[in-house]
């Protein structure tokens, strides 16, 4: 276990290093110096020098990366070039928005996808099953930015049912929720389809298991078998898949935010790229990388948990 953790930490450190180096390289090679873009062509050399120093661009690329990471360890991600606020405080306001969106998407996906899968499994091959099957597969193939745009068009522009811009007025939870609905749905759509398929096939498999035959043989009611015994077994792999899905949903949330102009890490990154606000870009990229690393770690752990069950089943059956 400790060896595993050490290995994971080293990998994580390497990933951060590579990502940040890559970012510094990109800044270096894209045409147009950041500072001159920010200050205009007629800025004085002294001002340019000062700006470069402030953003840490006056060092060699390896040095830039080392210094940035060193400062990050001290909790210092630099200063917003435009507002002069510390980047950490910008990120701390943005990060929860993104996480909330990702988890709302996941919540919706489970809330809708799991029951759909269960309903489909009640009568496999029936009309309901076939309909749900077609819908699920179409949902799975729809990228979240496409469904996001469609939702904006339908519910925001045509029907004007729900707000599609921003995250609502602070201190008004109902407004907050209203603003959260469409982005969360956009994020959840593919996962709804996926979870519906997964749950259905798990249910059908579980229903043929010996332990289901046992409770049938003892006269337990069909509904109870279905919703208590089978569902519990069918839901276990779904939980593990969600661990894997978290990273995916967080990544998706970053795009969805931009489409819905919701505050969050994605919009923060997007707007800071637009304004060439390099310290903010750097901070966002680091935090997003860390976030995805954590999500992947979770995914790995959940896979291991399933694995242990599988391995366990095998050894136990052999004895």
């Amino acid at each position, binding site marked *: 276990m400790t060896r595993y953790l050490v290995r994971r930490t080293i990998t994580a450190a390497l990933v951060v290093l590579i990502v940040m180096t890559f970012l510094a390289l990109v800044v270096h090679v894209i045409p147009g110096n950041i500072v001159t873009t920010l200050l205009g062509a007629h800025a004085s050399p002294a001002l340019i020098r000062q700006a470069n120093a402030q953003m840490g661009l006056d060092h060699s690329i390896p040095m830039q990366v080392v210094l940035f990471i060193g400062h990050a360890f001290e909790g210092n991600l630099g200063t917003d070039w435009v507002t002069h606020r510390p980047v950490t405080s910008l990120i701390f306001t943005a990060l929860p928005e993104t996480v909330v969106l990702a988890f709302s998407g996941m919540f919706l996906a489970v809330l809708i996808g799991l029951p759909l899968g269960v309903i489909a499994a009640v009568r496999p091959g029936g009309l309901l099953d076939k309909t749900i099957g077609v819908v699920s597969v179409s949902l799975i193939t729809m990228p979240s930015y496409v469904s996001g745009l469609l939702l904006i068009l339908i519910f925001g522009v045509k029907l004007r049912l729900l707000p599609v811009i921003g995250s609502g007025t602070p201190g008004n939870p109902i407004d907050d929720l209203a603003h959260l609905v469409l982005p969360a749905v956009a994020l959840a759509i593919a996962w709804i389809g996926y979870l519906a398929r997964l749950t259905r096939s798990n249910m059908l498999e579980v229903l*043929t*298991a*010996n*332990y*289901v*035959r*046992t*409770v*049938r*043989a*003892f*006269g*337990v*009611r*069909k509904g*109870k078998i279905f919703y*208590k*015994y089978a569902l*519990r*077994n069918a839901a*276990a792999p779904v939980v593990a898949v969600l661990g894997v899905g978290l990273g995916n949903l967080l990544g998706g949330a970053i795009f969805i935010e931009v489409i819905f102009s919701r505050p969050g890490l994605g919009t923060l990154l997007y707007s800071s790229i637009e304004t060439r606000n390099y310290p903010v870009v750097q901070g966002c990229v680091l935090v997003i990388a860390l976030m995805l690393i954590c999500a992947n770690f979770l995914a790995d752990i959940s896979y291991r948990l399933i694995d242990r*069950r599988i391995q*366990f*089943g095998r050894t*136990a*059956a052999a*004895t």
Partner: protein
Amino acid sequence: MSARADEAVLSVEGLEVEYRTSGATHRVLPGVDLTLEKAEVLGLVGESGSGKSTLAAAILRLLPPNGAIVGGRVVLAGDIEVSRLGTEALRQVRGTEVGMIFQDPLTCLNPTFRVGSQMVDVQAAHAGRRPGRNERRLYRRRALDLLAQVGLPDASHVAAAYPHQLSGGMRQRVMIAMALSLDPKLLIADEPTSALDVTLEAQIIELLAQLRESRHMSILFVTHDLGVVSQICDRVAVMYAGQIVEEGRVGDVFAEPQHPYTEALLEAVPSRALRGRRLAVIPGQVVAAGSMVTGCRFANRCREAQEICRSSEPPPVRVGKSESVRCHLRPRSPGARADDEVAVH
């Protein structure tokens, strides 16, 4: 016959079962008759694939989705015709009239529930109305009692355990306790000890023998172990390719087997060494289950096979002390002696 059927705990009459696999149908049971009296233990023996589990499952209509009963009937307790029961009536019969335990108690208990809660649910399923907290407490106490009765003195620990935390022998005891919780008159045990080692097997057999004494329970004991049959069974039915080819009291059949298949099974085994003895290997291939056979199903492996064996199916007849034997050459014609036949081959 009818008087006997009235007494019978279980009466299977002309039961036909088919499996559908990718277009083809296989008639695995071509018409089985079987009767179990009150407090009687009947051993159902036969090679793997002969249709024992199919018969056991068909009794409570628990066949897999691709299997179907296409003929005959199953009557429980003299007057419950299983094939006529509606869904709810069938559900109520399952477990209460007939309890069932299976070969592999690990896969037969739900891995995500504590065994105690599975035992409570089984009792609650037959409570009539939705049981409240008091009833569930009662079921729990009863579950603990039963666990202790089946030789698990540390009952509360066992009840709180998940199946994988128990040993194979303990799991099978749990299954037995679960079956007992509904107090069935008949217990169907489908190879309950095949997954256990010899010591554990002996313990489980001993337990079943005790329970049969104390509860006057009938048991249909499915096994391919002749030793087990000799230990616990009153009667034995020998199954071959979906058909019961010989049936009778264990002592009679083992002492004087009539059907050539039974003879071959017992031949290599000195009678005192039956214990733990798996079925002897008999040369030749069993006919594919469900294949259409004219004549005797054992003919292609039988050392006595004659012309008539391949052309017409032998009917069940009483031979010697055996109640029912399916063989054209039984009873033996007065001139022929078993020794001569062996000498010929």
